[in-house]
């Protein structure tokens, strides 16, 4: 019996033949079909090659034409729609840490396909760690902790990104720093993982920092765009 993490209804998961034949370990679905279908996956073949936004064809979107060329591009798994907004409301803002399981498998699968040398999640502030109690990105990937070597400079965010207008967000100064404890980045491909790509300001700041410290290229991977 499956109890959906999102709508709390019970349903019987169906065993489909290709999956049975694939000999994969039994991974129990955590959300029901109906809820899963409210999320809209983005086809990489029809997304902006720079930010991962869903489009009708694979060409630079109008937002990305304004960014300087960089050894960075972003991939996003889902369109940021109403269902995704509701998900973040419950997971990140209400703090229902159980919901990390909803996207764990798809994110891990995409991450594996990128074959990165180094994976680093965007960190949350020290204050978020004591109020929310977890990093929403590493919740999906591992244990909800911040990474050791990419850090936020400040204890708190002055104004949450989500409450700023686009212009103000683009002017946000570099919020991250590297501690000495990190791996050698020289000539490596690094995957940066974040929850949502909105203006791209946050993740591009982190990418700049990593590129300045010797990485060959940085790929962003976000759940939503």
């Amino acid at each position: 019996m499956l109890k959906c993490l999102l709508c709390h209804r019970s349903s019987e998961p169906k065993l489909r033949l290709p999956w049975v034949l694939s000999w994969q370990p039994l991974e129990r679905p955590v959300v029901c079909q109906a809820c899963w279908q409210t999320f809209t996956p983005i086809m990489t073949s029809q997304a902006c090659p720079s930010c991962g936004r869903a489009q009708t064809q694979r060409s630079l979107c109008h937002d990305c034409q304004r960014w300087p060329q960089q050894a960075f591009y972003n991939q996003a798994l889902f369109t940021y729609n109403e269902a995704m907004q509701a998900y973040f409301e419950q997971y990140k803002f209400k703090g229902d840490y159980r919901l990390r399981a909803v996207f764990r498998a798809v994110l891990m699968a995409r991450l594996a396909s990128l074959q990165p040398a180094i994976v680093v999640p965007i960190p949350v502030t020290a204050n978020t760690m004591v109020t929310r109690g977890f990093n929403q990105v590493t919740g999906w990937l591992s244990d909800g902790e911040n990474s050791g070597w990419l850090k936020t400079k400040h204890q708190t965010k002055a104004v949450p990104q989500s409450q700023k207008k686009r212009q103000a967000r683009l002017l946000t100064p570099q919020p991250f720093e590297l501690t000495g404890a990190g791996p050698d980045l020289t000539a490596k491909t690094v995957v940066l993982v974040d929850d949502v790509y909105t203006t791209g300001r946050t993740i591009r700041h982190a990418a700049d920092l990593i590129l300045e410290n010797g990485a060959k290229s940085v790929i962003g991977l976000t759940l939503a765009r």
Partner: protein
Amino acid sequence: MQASELYGRQLALTPLEAQDLPAATQKFVALRVTANRLQCQRCGSVLNRQAAQLPRDQFYCYDCLNLGRVSTLTSLYHISEPNDFPKVDQLTWQGQLTDQQASCAAMIQTKFEAHQRQLLWAVTGAGKTEMLFPGLAWALAQGWRVAIASPRVDVCLELHPRLQAAFANLEIALLHGRQITPYRYCQLTICTTHQLLRFRAAFDVLIVDEVDAFPFAANPRLGYAVEQALKPVSALLYLTATPSQDLLRQVRQHELGLSYLPLRFHQQLLPPIRVTLQPRYWERLKKGKLPWPLRPWLADYANRGQRFLIFVPRVAQLAVVQAAIQQVYPGLKGLTVHASDPERLAKVQAMRNLDVQYLVTTTILERGVTFPGIDVIVLGADDPIFSTAALVQIAGRVGRSKARPTGLVRFICRSYARPVKRAIRQIKLVNRKGRRLRAEMPVVSPLE
């Protein structure tokens, strides 16, 4: 934060949020963690360790999240209730109670004065809100803090203006999940039972209305909420038209007193339920035919112009039933309506305005909505979707006007399901009380 926001409350705050609280604030553990047990101290849920886990050996409660998260990163903050209320002229209501309502009201007040716990079993249409007024006025005049809670938001939304009209000089707080206005400290609070979880030892009197409505019966946390919100010395009044087995058990175990109000405001009994077994009613309807005895009943309604409601278990059945009726009696005018029907209000209004003679509906019209002088038919009353409480409420739609205080309540089922039997028994029981009451007239009979 103002001190009054914490009077009789328990708010889950992080140390950061709790920095500048008034000196009188007490702090309690929000989530109790022992070697083999994890319990939320706000909602009482015993939590699954794995599901409640946060990083760094912290835990959170996933059962009362929508009230703001309780976790080991928070504590509950509280200031004991000071009953700091301005004196105002309370009851401005000018209405009249019937003799029976008045003596029931007097009984309620006596129970408040004696700090007792009571279940008032009042039939649908007894006028129970008005009967609360004298007791409420008395309690408020003592400077007591009072709450009226219901599991249903719509009951709260309906009660608030009625009480505000009755106590015009009093500020009454209304609390529910969809609230956007900030909390205010008031002597009288109307709230959903879920919101009671935010209170601690606050109320001298707590009234829980429609106690058996979904989801109270199915939600064990609400019993916990009631106990938390009440002061150690306090009065508790449960109001219901259809008591659950659990409440009746509490009565038998003398944890709760019981009073009946078995007569409606017009002194009439509840119409009894009549059951017809018809195993093949649905097969007939699907073929566009009216099964016996629906056909003769509708023939009679078509003839006399008698208005009626037909209840069906599922939304998908509405159109089928409607089509069969129209096929056989094209002259009968009616509509179908269900809970998430966008035209629901307009259709109910059309029925009120006598524009149509009948509605085919799901359970949504069971409470609150009244059409004077109607009959009711329940198709498939044995379907598990109809609880005892729902069936009694549906029966209670009939006979609510002084002009036509009687009417027919007829069920068509495949078999006598347990809720059907219980509904019949409950109505028989209160009617027996009601008959005795009309004969002797001391109004409220204690449980023998």
